[in-house]
C-alpha cells in the first residue's frame, strides 16, 4: 500500500492516539495501582496544576537559560577545537581518540565529577552541559573540515585567498553541513546532560521537577515532566536545528528539494 506524502501526517497522528488509547486502556484495566501508573488524563491534569501554580514556567525558563548559555559556550569551544583538529593531523590524531572515548561515556556520568568539582553551585550544570556536547561538536567539525572537497581549496587558492583568510572564508563555510550535524547532535547530548545535572543539583528546572516528583511519590508529575522534556527536546531538534540543517544541505547541493 502506497500512502501519499501528504496523508502520512494523519497516520502519525493516529499512531500517537493509539499510544494514548493503549495507555488509557492499560490504566482502566487496573493491573497496576494508579499511584504507580497514572492515566494520560491524570498526567495532563498534573502538568496543568504545575503550570497554574506557577511552578512549571520558571523551571522551563531556567532549564532553557542554562541550556542556551551552556550550549553556546560548548559550541564555541567545540568549533575552535574542531577547527584546530581539522587543520592539524597531529592534533586530530591525539584528540579524536580521546573525544571518541569520552563520547561513549553516558552524559549523566559527568554529574558526580561536577559535584566533586563545583559542589552544588550552578557552574556544575554548565560543566556537565559543556562536557557532554563539546566532543560531538569538535569531532563533527574536524570531520567536516577533513572531508572538504579539494576542489574548493584549489578554487580558493587560484582565486588568491591568503592563507590567514582560509578558515573564515572557505574552510568553516565548506564544512558547515557537517558542523550543523554536529551541533544538532551536540544539542541533544547537552540536553541529556543538562537535565541529568538538574536532577541532582538544582532547586529549579525540568530536572528538578522530575526529582521532586519522585520525592513526592507523584508518578503523574514524573511522567508529565518526562513527556515535556521529550517534547521540548524534540521541538528544538526538529524546528531549530532540523530546519537550519535542511536549508544548508539543500543550498550546499547535498539534498534534493522534496517539492
Amino acid at each position, binding site marked *: 500500500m502506497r500512502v501519499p506524502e501528504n496523508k502520512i501526517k494523519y497516520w502519525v497522528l493516529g499512531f500517537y492516539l493509539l499510544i494514548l488509547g493503549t495507555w488509557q486502556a492499560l490504566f482502566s484495566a487496573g493491573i497496576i495501582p494508579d499511584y504507580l501508573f497514572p492515566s494520560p488524563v491524570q498526567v495532563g491534569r498534573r502538568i496543568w496544576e504545575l503550570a497554574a501554580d506557577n511552578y512549571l514556567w520558571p523551571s522551563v525558563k531556567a532549564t532553557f537559560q542554562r541550556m542556551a548559555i551552556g550550549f553556546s559556550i560548548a559550541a564555541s569551544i567545540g568549533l575552535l577545537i574542531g577547527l584546530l583538529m581539522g587543520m592539524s593531523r597531529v592534533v586530530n590524531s591525539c584528540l579524536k581518540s580521546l573525544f571518541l572515548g569520552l563520547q561513549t561515556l553516558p552524559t549523566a556520568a559527568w554529574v558526580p565529577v561536577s559535584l566533586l568539582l563545583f559542589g552544588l553551585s550552578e557552574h556544575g550544570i554548565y560543566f556537565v552541559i559543556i562536557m557532554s556536547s563539546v566532543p560531538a561538536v569538535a569531532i563533527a567539525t574536524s570531520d567536516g573540515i577533513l572531508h572538504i572537497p579539494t*576542489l*574548493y581549496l*584549489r*578554487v580558493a*587558492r*587560484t*582565486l*588568491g*585567498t*591568503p592563507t590567514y583568510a582560509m578558515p573564515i*572564508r*572557505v574552510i568553516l*563555510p*565548506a564544512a*558547515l553541513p557537517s558542523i550543523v550535524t554536529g551541533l544538532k547532535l551536540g544539542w541533544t547530548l547537552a540536553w541529556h546532560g543538562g537535565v541529568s545535572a538538574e536532577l541532582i543539583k538544582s532547586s529549579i528546572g525540568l530536572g528538578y521537577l522530575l526529582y521532586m516528583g519522585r520525592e513526592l511519590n507523584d508518578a503523574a508529575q514524573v511522567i508529565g515532566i518526562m513527556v515535556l522534556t521529550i517534547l521540548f527536546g524534540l521541538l528544538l531538534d526538529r524546528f531549530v536545528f532540523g530546519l537550519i540543517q535542511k536549508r544548508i544541505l*539543500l*543550498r*550546499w*547541493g547535498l539534498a534534493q528539494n522534496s517539492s
Partner: protein
Amino acid sequence: MEAADPNSNVAAAESPPVKLRLTNLSKTYAGQTQTVEALQPVNVEIREGEFVIFFGPSGCGKSTLLNIIAGFETATDGEITLDGTAVEGPHHDRLMMFQEHGLFPWLNVIENVTYGLKRKFRFKPKARRETARQYLQMVHLEEFEKSSIHELSGGMKQRVALARGLAPDPKVLLVDEAFTALDALTRAKLYGDIQEIFLRTKKTIILVTHDPREAACLGDRVLVFSGRPGRIKADIKIDLPRPRDINDPAVAECAATIMTQLEAPTDESSGK
C-alpha cells in the same frame, strides 16, 4: 593551418610579446619500484592574446602541465616565466577554471564572482560589485546575480565559474576540461560565449581538452600531446575566422587533421 615542430619558436615579425614561457619543464613521479615520466621536457612559448589548446588522450600529461602552470603541482625540472618573471605556486595571475564548477554554495552568484576581487579593490565593495556585474553580463547571467548556486543549471554554473575566473583579470586563464561534463547543446552555446569573450577581452587562454572538435573550434593553436611518456607531439596553428561554430565543416576538417597528428607515428615511439 600548419603543423610545425613543437620545439621551434619561429615568431612572425609582428607577433605579440611572449606571455608565458615554459622552459625544459618536466615531471617525473618517483614510485617505489620505478619512476614514471609523466612529462618529458617541454619548451613552449605562449603569446599574449593567444588561445592555446592542450589536446591529447587521458594520461598524456596535458592536465599535469596545466596544474604545474597553475601552481598546484611542482615541476621536477624546468622553469615557468610569466611576462618574463619566474613564477611558482598558485596565484590569481594564472587563474584556473576546473572541470567541475567549484562555485562556493555558501555564496550567491554575484558573491562568487566578487570573491576573487577581494584583493583587487580592497575597501570598495561597490567597485567589486560593478566589475562582477560586467562579467556576469558577458556570460549573459546578469539577471541571476542574487540566485543561489543550487538553483542554476549545469551550463549556468559553468558560466558563473567563467565570469568568476575572468573578473580578477588574470594574465592567463587556465581552463581544465571545463566543458566536457555538459550536454552538447549547452556546450555549443558556451563555445560561442567563450569565443565572444575571447575576442572582446583579448585574454590569453590555455584550455585542456580531449575533444578534437572542441580544440579545433576554440584554439588559435593546438598542442597535441601523446602519452607514456607524456610529450608534445605537434603544434598546429588554426586560422579559421571567429566566431567558429562547432558544427562547421571546416572545424570538423580541422579536428580530423588534429587527430591525424595525434595518431601519426614518430621516430621515438609508434604513437600512443
